[in-house]
Protein backbone atom coordinates (compact mmCIF):
# COMPACT_ATOMS: atom_id res chain seq x y z
CA UNK A 1 0.00 0.00 0.00
CA UNK A 2 1.00 3.58 -0.40
CA UNK A 3 -0.64 6.93 0.10
CA UNK A 4 -3.36 8.30 -2.12
CA UNK A 5 -2.05 11.04 -4.39
CA UNK A 6 -5.51 12.49 -4.85
CA UNK A 7 -8.64 12.94 -2.75
CA UNK A 8 -10.95 11.65 -5.49
CA UNK A 9 -11.46 8.30 -3.67
CA UNK A 10 -13.03 10.20 -0.78
CA UNK A 11 -15.69 11.48 -3.18
CA UNK A 12 -16.54 7.89 -4.12
CA UNK A 13 -16.85 7.06 -0.43
CA UNK A 14 -19.29 9.96 -0.13
CA UNK A 15 -21.31 8.61 -3.07
CA UNK A 16 -21.43 5.21 -1.40
CA UNK A 17 -22.73 6.76 1.82
CA UNK A 18 -25.40 8.71 -0.07
CA UNK A 19 -26.63 5.56 -1.79
CA UNK A 20 -26.75 3.81 1.57
CA UNK A 21 -28.53 6.59 3.45
CA UNK A 22 -30.85 8.21 0.90
CA UNK A 23 -33.75 6.50 -0.80
CA UNK A 24 -35.11 9.58 -2.59
CA UNK A 25 -33.85 9.37 -6.19
CA UNK A 26 -34.58 13.05 -6.85
CA UNK A 27 -32.57 14.10 -3.81
CA UNK A 28 -29.70 11.84 -4.91
CA UNK A 29 -29.76 13.42 -8.37
CA UNK A 30 -29.75 16.94 -6.90
CA UNK A 31 -26.85 16.04 -4.59
CA UNK A 32 -24.91 14.72 -7.59
CA UNK A 33 -25.57 17.97 -9.45
CA UNK A 34 -24.19 19.94 -6.51
CA UNK A 35 -21.17 17.65 -6.37
CA UNK A 36 -20.45 18.24 -10.05
CA UNK A 37 -20.86 22.00 -9.63
CA UNK A 38 -18.44 21.99 -6.69
CA UNK A 39 -15.90 19.98 -8.67
CA UNK A 40 -16.22 22.26 -11.69
CA UNK A 41 -15.72 25.29 -9.45
CA UNK A 42 -12.54 23.88 -7.86
CA UNK A 43 -11.24 21.11 -10.14
CA UNK A 44 -7.79 21.27 -8.55
CA UNK A 45 -8.97 20.48 -5.04
CA UNK A 46 -11.08 17.28 -4.81
CA UNK A 47 -10.33 17.33 -1.07
CA UNK A 48 -12.12 20.66 -0.71
CA UNK A 49 -15.00 19.35 -2.84
CA UNK A 50 -15.25 16.41 -0.45
CA UNK A 51 -15.05 18.72 2.56
CA UNK A 52 -18.01 20.73 1.21
CA UNK A 53 -20.10 17.65 0.39
CA UNK A 54 -20.91 17.02 4.05
CA UNK A 55 -22.71 20.36 4.14
CA UNK A 56 -24.74 20.04 0.95
CA UNK A 57 -27.86 18.81 2.77
CA UNK A 58 -29.19 19.31 6.24
CA UNK A 59 -32.19 17.81 8.02
CA UNK A 60 -34.47 20.15 9.89
CA UNK A 61 -37.65 19.82 11.99
CA UNK A 62 -40.72 19.85 9.75
CA UNK A 63 -42.16 22.98 11.35
CA UNK A 64 -39.01 24.97 10.63
CA UNK A 65 -39.26 24.84 6.83
CA UNK A 66 -39.58 28.26 5.20
CA UNK A 67 -41.76 29.50 2.38
CA UNK A 68 -39.70 29.46 -0.85
CA UNK A 69 -37.45 26.57 0.24
CA UNK A 70 -37.15 23.52 -1.96
CA UNK A 71 -37.65 20.58 0.37
CA UNK A 72 -37.38 16.81 0.13
CA UNK A 73 -39.87 14.92 2.25
CA UNK A 74 -39.66 11.21 2.96
CA UNK A 75 -42.60 9.38 4.46
CA UNK A 76 -42.22 5.61 4.77
CA UNK A 77 -41.61 4.44 1.20
CA UNK A 78 -42.82 7.62 -0.50
CA UNK A 79 -40.90 10.80 -1.36
CA UNK A 80 -42.28 14.26 -2.16
CA UNK A 81 -40.14 17.03 -3.54
CA UNK A 82 -41.32 20.57 -4.03
CA UNK A 83 -41.04 24.25 -3.18
CA UNK A 84 -42.95 25.50 -0.14
CA UNK A 85 -45.62 27.87 -1.43
CA UNK A 86 -47.40 28.44 1.85
CA UNK A 87 -47.25 27.25 5.43
CA UNK A 88 -49.77 27.12 8.27
CA UNK A 89 -50.04 25.39 11.63
CA UNK A 90 -51.03 22.06 10.04
CA UNK A 91 -48.47 21.81 7.26
CA UNK A 92 -47.29 23.24 3.96
CA UNK A 93 -48.46 23.52 0.39
CA UNK A 94 -45.87 22.61 -2.19
CA UNK A 95 -45.60 23.64 -5.83
CA UNK A 96 -43.55 22.13 -8.68
CA UNK A 97 -44.02 18.77 -6.97
CA UNK A 98 -42.46 15.46 -7.86
CA UNK A 99 -43.65 12.30 -6.14
CA UNK A 100 -41.86 8.99 -5.98
CA UNK A 101 -44.00 6.17 -4.67
CA UNK A 102 -43.37 2.51 -4.01
CA UNK A 103 -45.67 -0.17 -5.45
CA UNK A 104 -45.54 -3.92 -5.03
CA UNK A 105 -46.85 -4.42 -8.54
CA UNK A 106 -47.61 -2.18 -11.51
CA UNK A 107 -48.88 -2.82 -15.00
CA UNK A 108 -47.39 -0.57 -17.71
CA UNK A 109 -48.32 -0.56 -21.36
CA UNK A 110 -45.57 -0.40 -23.97
CA UNK A 111 -47.02 2.86 -25.24
CA UNK A 112 -46.24 4.43 -21.88
CA UNK A 113 -42.54 3.54 -22.16
CA UNK A 114 -40.75 6.51 -23.71
CA UNK A 115 -37.29 5.21 -22.77
CA UNK A 116 -36.31 1.95 -21.13
CA UNK A 117 -32.88 1.39 -19.57
CA UNK A 118 -31.35 -1.66 -17.95
CA UNK A 119 -28.09 -1.89 -16.02
CA UNK A 120 -25.13 -3.90 -17.24
CA UNK A 121 -23.42 -5.14 -14.10
CA UNK A 122 -20.76 -7.05 -16.06
CA UNK A 123 -19.21 -4.13 -17.91
CA UNK A 124 -15.79 -4.51 -16.25
CA UNK A 125 -15.68 -8.17 -17.24
CA UNK A 126 -16.58 -7.26 -20.83
CA UNK A 127 -14.11 -4.40 -21.26
CA UNK A 128 -11.26 -5.39 -18.98
CA UNK A 129 -11.53 -9.06 -17.99
CA UNK A 130 -7.96 -9.12 -16.63
CA UNK A 131 -9.16 -6.90 -13.79
CA UNK A 132 -11.85 -9.31 -12.61
CA UNK A 133 -10.57 -11.37 -9.69
CA UNK A 134 -11.90 -14.25 -7.69
CA UNK A 135 -12.83 -13.08 -4.22
CA UNK A 136 -10.70 -14.75 -1.60
CA UNK A 137 -12.81 -16.22 1.18
CA UNK A 138 -12.31 -14.30 4.39
CA UNK A 139 -11.65 -16.49 7.40
Amino acid at each position, binding site marked *: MTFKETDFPSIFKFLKSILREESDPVLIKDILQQLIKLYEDVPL*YPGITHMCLGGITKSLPAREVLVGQRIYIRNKGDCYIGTVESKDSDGVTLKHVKIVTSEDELEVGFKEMEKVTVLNEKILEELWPSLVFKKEVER
Partner: protein
Amino acid sequence: MNNQTLKQNDFYLLVGPASLSVQSGEVEVIAAGIKAGQTLEVPSGKRVPVKAISDASLELKAPPESFSKMETSSIPEEWDNLAGRIASGHIMGRLYNVMVLGEVDTGKTFFCTYLANRLIEKKKRIGVLDCDTGQSDIGPPGAFGMLVMNSPTVFLSEEPATHLYMLGAHSPGLHFLPAMTGLSYMLEKARAGVDVLIIDTTGWVQGDGGRALKKAKLDFIKPDLVVLMQRGNELEHLVKHLPSSKVVRLPVSKKASPTSQMERKSLRELVSKRYFKNSRVFEIPFKQIITDRCYFLSGTPLPLEGTLHSERLSGWEGTLVISSGPLLMEMTKGWPKDLGRIMNFVSGHEKGLLIAFLDENQDVLALGRLEEIDFLNNCFRVRAPFPGDLNSIKCIQFGSVKVTENGEEAGFLEPGSF
Protein backbone atom coordinates in the same frame (compact mmCIF):
# COMPACT_ATOMS: atom_id res chain seq x y z
CA MET B 1 7.11 60.62 11.40
CA ASN B 2 9.00 60.20 14.68
CA ASN B 3 12.60 59.82 15.79
CA GLN B 4 13.83 57.01 18.00
CA THR B 5 17.10 56.62 19.81
CA LEU B 6 18.27 53.07 20.43
CA LYS B 7 21.00 51.85 22.75
CA GLN B 8 23.31 49.06 21.62
CA ASN B 9 21.60 45.62 22.02
CA ASP B 10 18.13 47.14 22.40
CA PHE B 11 15.43 45.02 20.76
CA TYR B 12 12.27 46.38 19.16
CA LEU B 13 9.39 45.01 17.13
CA LEU B 14 8.34 46.99 14.05
CA VAL B 15 4.91 46.32 12.52
CA GLY B 16 4.23 47.27 8.91
CA PRO B 17 3.31 49.29 7.02
CA ALA B 18 6.28 51.33 8.16
CA SER B 19 9.42 52.98 6.90
CA LEU B 20 12.60 52.94 8.97
CA SER B 21 15.58 55.18 8.09
CA VAL B 22 18.82 54.85 10.00
CA GLN B 23 20.22 58.32 10.74
CA SER B 24 23.28 57.13 12.66
CA GLY B 25 24.67 53.84 13.95
CA GLU B 26 23.52 50.43 12.70
CA VAL B 27 20.60 48.13 13.32
CA GLU B 28 19.99 44.55 12.28
CA VAL B 29 16.69 43.26 10.93
CA ILE B 30 16.38 39.49 10.39
CA ALA B 31 20.20 39.29 10.41
CA ALA B 32 20.51 41.93 7.67
CA GLY B 33 22.48 45.00 8.70
CA ILE B 34 20.99 48.42 7.99
CA LYS B 35 23.53 51.20 8.23
CA ALA B 36 23.30 55.00 8.48
CA GLY B 37 21.70 56.41 5.34
CA GLN B 38 19.80 53.20 4.53
CA THR B 39 16.02 52.80 4.65
CA LEU B 40 13.85 49.74 5.17
CA GLU B 41 10.25 49.58 3.99
CA VAL B 42 8.11 47.13 5.95
CA PRO B 43 4.98 46.15 3.99
CA SER B 44 1.55 45.84 5.52
CA GLY B 45 1.04 42.50 7.25
CA LYS B 46 4.74 42.05 8.01
CA ARG B 47 6.46 42.55 11.34
CA VAL B 48 10.17 42.39 12.00
CA PRO B 49 12.47 42.46 15.00
CA VAL B 50 14.98 45.31 15.08
CA LYS B 51 18.24 44.91 17.00
CA ALA B 52 20.60 47.81 17.63
CA ILE B 53 24.10 46.70 16.67
CA SER B 54 25.42 50.00 18.02
CA ASP B 55 23.78 53.07 19.52
CA ALA B 56 21.56 54.29 16.72
CA SER B 57 19.07 56.98 15.85
CA LEU B 58 16.17 56.17 13.56
CA GLU B 59 13.55 58.08 11.67
CA LEU B 60 10.27 56.18 11.54
CA LYS B 61 7.30 56.72 9.30
CA ALA B 62 4.76 54.68 11.20
CA PRO B 63 2.24 55.12 14.01
CA PRO B 64 4.04 55.17 17.42
CA GLU B 65 2.36 51.92 18.49
CA SER B 66 4.00 50.14 15.53
CA PHE B 67 7.40 50.29 17.21
CA SER B 68 7.53 48.56 20.58
CA LYS B 69 10.46 47.66 22.82
CA MET B 70 11.08 44.00 23.64
CA GLU B 71 12.84 42.73 26.74
CA THR B 72 15.02 40.31 24.81
CA SER B 73 15.70 39.23 21.24
CA SER B 74 12.90 37.24 19.66
CA ILE B 75 15.50 35.22 17.74
CA PRO B 76 16.60 32.12 19.69
CA GLU B 77 20.34 31.71 20.13
CA GLU B 78 20.14 28.25 18.58
CA TRP B 79 19.35 29.80 15.18
CA ASP B 80 22.80 31.42 15.21
CA ASN B 81 24.38 28.19 16.41
CA LEU B 82 22.70 26.38 13.54
CA ALA B 83 24.14 28.82 11.01
CA GLY B 84 27.57 28.14 12.46
CA ARG B 85 27.02 24.38 12.25
CA ILE B 86 25.94 24.58 8.60
CA ALA B 87 28.86 26.83 7.66
CA SER B 88 31.36 24.47 9.24
CA GLY B 89 29.61 21.39 7.82
CA HIS B 90 29.72 22.63 4.25
CA ILE B 91 32.41 21.04 2.10
CA MET B 92 33.70 23.24 -0.72
CA GLY B 93 32.47 22.12 -4.12
CA ARG B 94 29.52 20.19 -2.71
CA LEU B 95 25.99 21.52 -2.31
CA TYR B 96 24.73 21.50 1.30
CA ASN B 97 20.94 21.18 1.43
CA VAL B 98 18.86 22.39 4.35
CA MET B 99 15.18 21.42 4.18
CA VAL B 100 12.80 23.39 6.38
CA LEU B 101 9.53 21.70 7.35
CA GLY B 102 6.58 23.08 9.25
CA GLU B 103 2.82 23.48 9.16
CA VAL B 104 1.38 26.73 7.81
CA ASP B 105 2.11 29.87 9.83
CA THR B 106 5.10 28.49 11.71
CA GLY B 107 7.54 31.16 10.54
CA LYS B 108 9.41 29.02 7.99
CA THR B 109 10.12 31.90 5.60
CA PHE B 110 11.26 34.16 8.42
CA PHE B 111 13.64 31.45 9.60
CA CYS B 112 14.93 30.79 6.06
CA THR B 113 15.62 34.49 5.59
CA TYR B 114 17.44 34.76 8.90
CA LEU B 115 19.52 31.66 8.22
CA ALA B 116 20.41 32.83 4.70
CA ASN B 117 21.53 36.23 5.95
CA ARG B 118 23.64 34.72 8.72
CA LEU B 119 25.29 32.33 6.25
CA ILE B 120 26.09 35.15 3.83
CA GLU B 121 27.99 36.76 6.71
CA LYS B 122 30.06 33.58 6.77
CA LYS B 123 31.05 34.08 3.12
CA LYS B 124 28.85 31.35 1.74
CA ARG B 125 26.99 31.52 -1.57
CA ILE B 126 23.39 31.03 -0.54
CA GLY B 127 20.32 29.97 -2.46
CA VAL B 128 16.81 30.00 -1.02
CA LEU B 129 14.30 27.79 -2.82
CA ASP B 130 10.68 28.66 -2.19
CA CYS B 131 8.46 25.64 -2.93
CA ASP B 132 5.38 27.16 -1.31
CA THR B 133 3.50 28.19 -4.46
CA GLY B 134 0.44 29.15 -2.45
CA GLN B 135 2.31 31.68 -0.35
CA SER B 136 5.19 32.61 -2.59
CA ASP B 137 7.92 34.86 -1.32
CA ILE B 138 10.25 34.29 -4.24
CA GLY B 139 8.61 34.65 -7.64
CA PRO B 140 4.89 34.80 -8.39
CA PRO B 141 2.27 32.41 -6.93
CA GLY B 142 2.01 29.17 -8.86
CA ALA B 143 5.77 28.89 -9.37
CA PHE B 144 8.79 27.62 -7.49
CA GLY B 145 11.27 30.45 -7.11
CA MET B 146 14.94 30.38 -6.24
CA LEU B 147 16.89 33.39 -5.11
CA VAL B 148 20.66 33.25 -5.30
CA MET B 149 21.63 35.88 -2.77
CA ASN B 150 24.50 38.28 -3.25
CA SER B 151 23.83 40.23 -0.09
CA PRO B 152 21.58 39.98 2.97
CA THR B 153 17.95 40.90 2.46
CA VAL B 154 15.10 41.49 4.88
CA PHE B 155 12.25 40.43 2.61
CA LEU B 156 12.91 37.71 0.05
CA SER B 157 9.80 38.91 -1.76
CA GLU B 158 11.52 42.21 -2.60
CA GLU B 159 14.13 40.49 -4.78
CA PRO B 160 13.54 39.18 -8.30
CA ALA B 161 13.78 35.40 -8.52
CA THR B 162 17.01 34.08 -10.00
CA HIS B 163 15.26 30.95 -11.29
CA LEU B 164 11.59 30.10 -11.76
CA TYR B 165 9.79 26.83 -12.39
CA MET B 166 6.05 26.87 -12.99
CA LEU B 167 4.02 24.43 -10.94
CA GLY B 168 0.83 25.89 -12.39
CA ALA B 169 -1.19 25.71 -9.18
CA HIS B 170 -1.18 27.08 -5.66
CA SER B 171 -0.93 23.61 -4.16
CA PRO B 172 1.00 20.53 -5.28
CA GLY B 173 -2.21 18.46 -5.04
CA LEU B 174 -2.94 17.05 -8.55
CA HIS B 175 0.50 18.47 -9.53
CA PHE B 176 2.80 16.01 -7.76
CA LEU B 177 4.90 15.31 -10.84
CA PRO B 178 5.64 18.96 -11.72
CA ALA B 179 6.41 19.47 -8.03
CA MET B 180 9.07 16.77 -8.19
CA THR B 181 10.47 17.74 -11.60
CA GLY B 182 10.57 21.34 -10.40
CA LEU B 183 12.58 20.27 -7.40
CA SER B 184 14.98 18.34 -9.62
CA TYR B 185 15.36 21.36 -11.90
CA MET B 186 16.08 23.70 -9.01
CA LEU B 187 18.60 21.35 -7.38
CA GLU B 188 20.51 21.25 -10.65
CA LYS B 189 20.58 25.04 -10.74
CA ALA B 190 21.71 25.14 -7.11
CA ARG B 191 24.55 22.66 -7.69
CA ALA B 192 25.87 24.98 -10.36
CA GLY B 193 25.79 28.16 -8.35
CA VAL B 194 25.52 27.97 -4.57
CA ASP B 195 27.17 26.42 -1.51
CA VAL B 196 24.11 26.10 0.68
CA LEU B 197 20.53 25.70 -0.52
CA ILE B 198 17.79 26.45 2.01
CA ILE B 199 14.54 24.81 0.90
CA ASP B 200 11.35 26.41 2.18
CA THR B 201 8.44 23.99 1.83
CA THR B 202 4.64 24.08 1.93
CA GLY B 203 2.77 23.57 5.18
CA TRP B 204 1.13 20.42 3.76
CA VAL B 205 2.66 17.85 6.10
CA GLN B 206 -0.27 15.63 7.04
CA GLY B 207 -2.70 13.23 5.40
CA ASP B 208 -2.03 11.04 2.39
CA GLY B 209 -0.85 13.84 0.10
CA GLY B 210 1.24 15.65 2.69
CA ARG B 211 3.00 12.48 3.81
CA ALA B 212 3.51 11.17 0.28
CA LEU B 213 4.94 14.37 -1.12
CA LYS B 214 7.14 15.30 1.81
CA LYS B 215 8.62 11.80 2.01
CA ALA B 216 9.25 11.84 -1.74
CA LYS B 217 11.00 15.19 -1.43
CA LEU B 218 13.10 14.00 1.50
CA ASP B 219 14.09 10.89 -0.48
CA PHE B 220 14.92 12.97 -3.53
CA ILE B 221 16.82 15.82 -1.90
CA LYS B 222 18.65 13.69 0.66
CA PRO B 223 19.12 16.83 2.76
CA ASP B 224 22.19 17.33 4.89
CA LEU B 225 19.95 18.86 7.52
CA VAL B 226 16.20 18.88 8.13
CA VAL B 227 14.83 21.67 10.29
CA LEU B 228 11.49 20.94 11.92
CA MET B 229 9.56 24.01 13.01
CA GLN B 230 6.90 22.47 15.17
CA ARG B 231 4.57 23.32 18.02
CA GLY B 232 4.49 19.78 19.39
CA ASN B 233 5.47 16.60 17.57
CA GLU B 234 3.36 17.13 14.45
CA LEU B 235 6.28 16.60 12.05
CA GLU B 236 7.96 13.62 13.66
CA HIS B 237 6.23 11.09 11.36
CA LEU B 238 8.15 12.57 8.41
CA VAL B 239 11.65 12.05 9.77
CA LYS B 240 11.53 8.65 11.48
CA HIS B 241 13.89 7.23 8.84
CA LEU B 242 16.55 9.89 9.34
CA PRO B 243 19.46 9.70 11.77
CA SER B 244 19.01 12.10 14.66
CA SER B 245 22.19 13.94 13.63
CA LYS B 246 20.38 15.21 10.53
CA VAL B 247 17.30 16.56 12.29
CA VAL B 248 17.07 19.84 14.16
CA ARG B 249 13.90 20.72 16.08
CA LEU B 250 13.02 24.34 16.59
CA PRO B 251 9.99 25.50 18.55
CA VAL B 252 7.58 27.78 16.73
CA SER B 253 7.81 31.36 17.92
CA LYS B 254 4.82 32.60 19.89
CA LYS B 255 4.92 35.61 17.59
CA ALA B 256 4.07 33.46 14.55
CA SER B 257 0.47 34.47 13.97
CA PRO B 258 -2.16 32.53 11.99
CA THR B 259 -3.33 33.94 8.67
CA SER B 260 -6.86 33.31 7.44
CA GLN B 261 -7.74 31.87 4.02
CA MET B 262 -8.71 35.33 2.78
CA GLU B 263 -5.51 36.91 4.14
CA ARG B 264 -3.48 34.25 2.39
CA LYS B 265 -5.35 34.94 -0.85
CA SER B 266 -4.77 38.70 -0.45
CA LEU B 267 -1.06 38.15 0.14
CA ARG B 268 -0.86 35.91 -2.96
CA GLU B 269 -2.64 38.51 -5.05
CA LEU B 270 -0.35 41.25 -3.78
CA VAL B 271 2.68 39.32 -5.03
CA SER B 272 0.93 38.39 -8.27
CA LYS B 273 -0.19 41.97 -8.98
CA ARG B 274 3.34 43.21 -8.46
CA TYR B 275 4.71 40.54 -10.80
CA PHE B 276 2.25 41.38 -13.59
CA LYS B 277 2.49 45.16 -13.05
CA ASN B 278 4.55 45.97 -16.13
CA SER B 279 3.02 43.38 -18.41
CA ARG B 280 2.17 43.84 -22.06
CA VAL B 281 0.41 41.66 -24.58
CA PHE B 282 2.46 39.55 -27.00
CA GLU B 283 1.39 37.58 -30.04
CA ILE B 284 3.26 34.32 -30.38
CA PRO B 285 2.65 32.41 -33.64
CA PHE B 286 1.81 28.72 -33.25
CA LYS B 287 4.66 27.83 -35.61
CA GLN B 288 7.26 29.54 -33.38
CA ILE B 289 6.77 27.34 -30.36
CA ILE B 290 6.04 23.93 -28.99
CA THR B 291 3.47 23.46 -26.25
CA ASP B 292 3.97 21.69 -22.92
CA ARG B 293 1.56 20.14 -20.40
CA CYS B 294 -1.26 20.08 -22.94
CA TYR B 295 -2.52 18.13 -25.95
CA PHE B 296 -2.93 21.23 -28.14
CA LEU B 297 -0.44 21.34 -31.05
CA SER B 298 1.05 17.98 -30.10
CA GLY B 299 -0.71 15.89 -32.77
CA THR B 300 -1.36 15.84 -36.51
CA PRO B 301 -3.65 18.53 -37.96
CA LEU B 302 -6.96 17.10 -39.10
CA PRO B 303 -9.38 19.75 -40.37
CA LEU B 304 -12.94 18.97 -39.36
CA GLU B 305 -15.91 20.96 -40.57
CA GLY B 306 -17.43 23.34 -38.02
CA THR B 307 -14.44 23.41 -35.69
CA LEU B 308 -11.88 26.11 -34.90
CA HIS B 309 -9.11 23.55 -34.64
CA SER B 310 -8.79 19.80 -34.65
CA GLU B 311 -5.90 17.40 -34.52
CA ARG B 312 -5.37 13.67 -34.31
CA LEU B 313 -3.62 12.77 -31.06
CA SER B 314 -1.40 9.82 -30.27
CA GLY B 315 -2.88 6.29 -30.44
CA TRP B 316 -5.92 5.78 -28.21
CA GLU B 317 -5.97 9.44 -27.16
CA GLY B 318 -8.29 10.10 -30.10
CA THR B 319 -8.94 13.56 -31.51
CA LEU B 320 -8.78 17.02 -29.97
CA VAL B 321 -11.56 19.25 -31.23
CA ILE B 322 -11.73 22.93 -30.33
CA SER B 323 -15.04 24.54 -31.12
CA SER B 324 -16.75 27.83 -30.45
CA GLY B 325 -19.55 26.06 -28.55
CA PRO B 326 -20.46 22.57 -27.35
CA LEU B 327 -20.42 19.96 -30.11
CA LEU B 328 -23.79 19.14 -31.61
CA MET B 329 -24.70 15.81 -33.22
CA GLU B 330 -25.46 17.49 -36.58
CA MET B 331 -21.95 18.97 -36.71
CA THR B 332 -20.26 15.62 -36.35
CA LYS B 333 -22.39 13.70 -38.87
CA GLY B 334 -20.02 14.32 -41.79
CA TRP B 335 -16.84 13.61 -39.83
CA PRO B 336 -14.72 10.49 -40.40
CA LYS B 337 -15.77 7.53 -38.25
CA ASP B 338 -12.26 6.63 -37.06
CA LEU B 339 -11.58 9.69 -34.88
CA GLY B 340 -11.62 7.64 -31.70
CA ARG B 341 -12.39 9.45 -28.47
CA ILE B 342 -13.32 13.09 -29.09
CA MET B 343 -11.77 15.50 -26.62
CA ASN B 344 -13.81 18.68 -26.98
CA PHE B 345 -12.67 22.03 -25.64
CA VAL B 346 -14.80 25.13 -26.01
CA SER B 347 -12.74 28.12 -27.07
CA GLY B 348 -12.67 31.01 -24.64
CA HIS B 349 -12.36 28.91 -21.49
CA GLU B 350 -8.58 29.25 -21.76
CA LYS B 351 -8.79 32.99 -21.05
CA GLY B 352 -6.75 33.95 -17.98
CA LEU B 353 -4.78 30.71 -17.72
CA LEU B 354 -1.35 30.97 -16.12
CA ILE B 355 1.36 30.04 -18.60
CA ALA B 356 5.15 30.13 -18.73
CA PHE B 357 7.42 31.17 -21.57
CA LEU B 358 10.33 28.73 -21.83
CA ASP B 359 13.51 29.14 -23.83
CA GLU B 360 15.33 26.48 -25.84
CA ASN B 361 16.79 25.00 -22.63
CA GLN B 362 13.32 24.78 -21.09
CA ASP B 363 14.26 27.52 -18.62
CA VAL B 364 11.43 29.85 -17.61
CA LEU B 365 11.73 33.29 -19.20
CA ALA B 366 8.58 34.69 -17.63
CA LEU B 367 5.14 33.71 -16.42
CA GLY B 368 2.16 35.13 -18.23
CA ARG B 369 -1.59 35.17 -18.59
CA LEU B 370 -3.14 33.61 -21.67
CA GLU B 371 -5.47 36.21 -23.17
CA GLU B 372 -6.67 33.95 -25.96
CA ILE B 373 -5.79 31.33 -28.48
CA ASP B 374 -6.44 33.13 -31.77
CA PHE B 375 -7.41 30.50 -34.33
CA LEU B 376 -7.96 33.06 -37.08
CA ASN B 377 -4.37 34.27 -36.96
CA ASN B 378 -2.86 31.04 -35.58
CA CYS B 379 -1.25 32.66 -32.59
CA PHE B 380 -1.34 32.84 -28.80
CA ARG B 381 -2.08 36.21 -27.25
CA VAL B 382 -0.30 36.38 -23.90
CA ARG B 383 0.10 39.13 -21.29
CA ALA B 384 3.46 38.92 -19.54
CA PRO B 385 6.13 41.06 -17.90
CA PHE B 386 8.72 39.93 -20.42
CA PRO B 387 11.23 42.53 -21.61
CA GLY B 388 13.40 40.10 -23.59
CA ASP B 389 13.67 38.95 -27.18
CA LEU B 390 10.41 37.37 -28.41
CA ASN B 391 12.39 34.98 -30.59
CA SER B 392 13.89 33.40 -27.48
CA ILE B 393 10.46 32.00 -26.58
CA LYS B 394 10.50 28.40 -27.77
CA CYS B 395 7.80 26.83 -25.66
CA ILE B 396 4.58 27.73 -23.89
CA GLN B 397 3.86 25.68 -20.79
CA PHE B 398 0.32 25.62 -19.41
CA GLY B 399 -0.76 25.86 -15.78
CA SER B 400 -4.12 25.16 -14.16
CA VAL B 401 -4.93 28.41 -12.35
CA LYS B 402 -6.37 31.56 -13.88
CA VAL B 403 -5.52 35.17 -13.15
CA THR B 404 -7.04 38.48 -14.18
CA GLU B 405 -5.14 41.12 -16.15
CA ASN B 406 -4.09 42.64 -12.82
CA GLY B 407 -2.90 39.38 -11.33
CA GLU B 408 -5.94 38.67 -9.16
CA GLU B 409 -7.10 35.07 -8.84
CA ALA B 410 -9.81 34.06 -11.29
CA GLY B 411 -10.47 30.34 -10.89
CA PHE B 412 -9.13 27.19 -12.52
CA LEU B 413 -9.10 25.07 -15.62
CA GLU B 414 -9.35 21.34 -15.12
CA PRO B 415 -5.97 19.73 -15.87
CA GLY B 416 -5.98 17.91 -19.20
CA SER B 417 -8.76 20.07 -20.68
CA PHE B 418 -6.97 20.67 -23.95
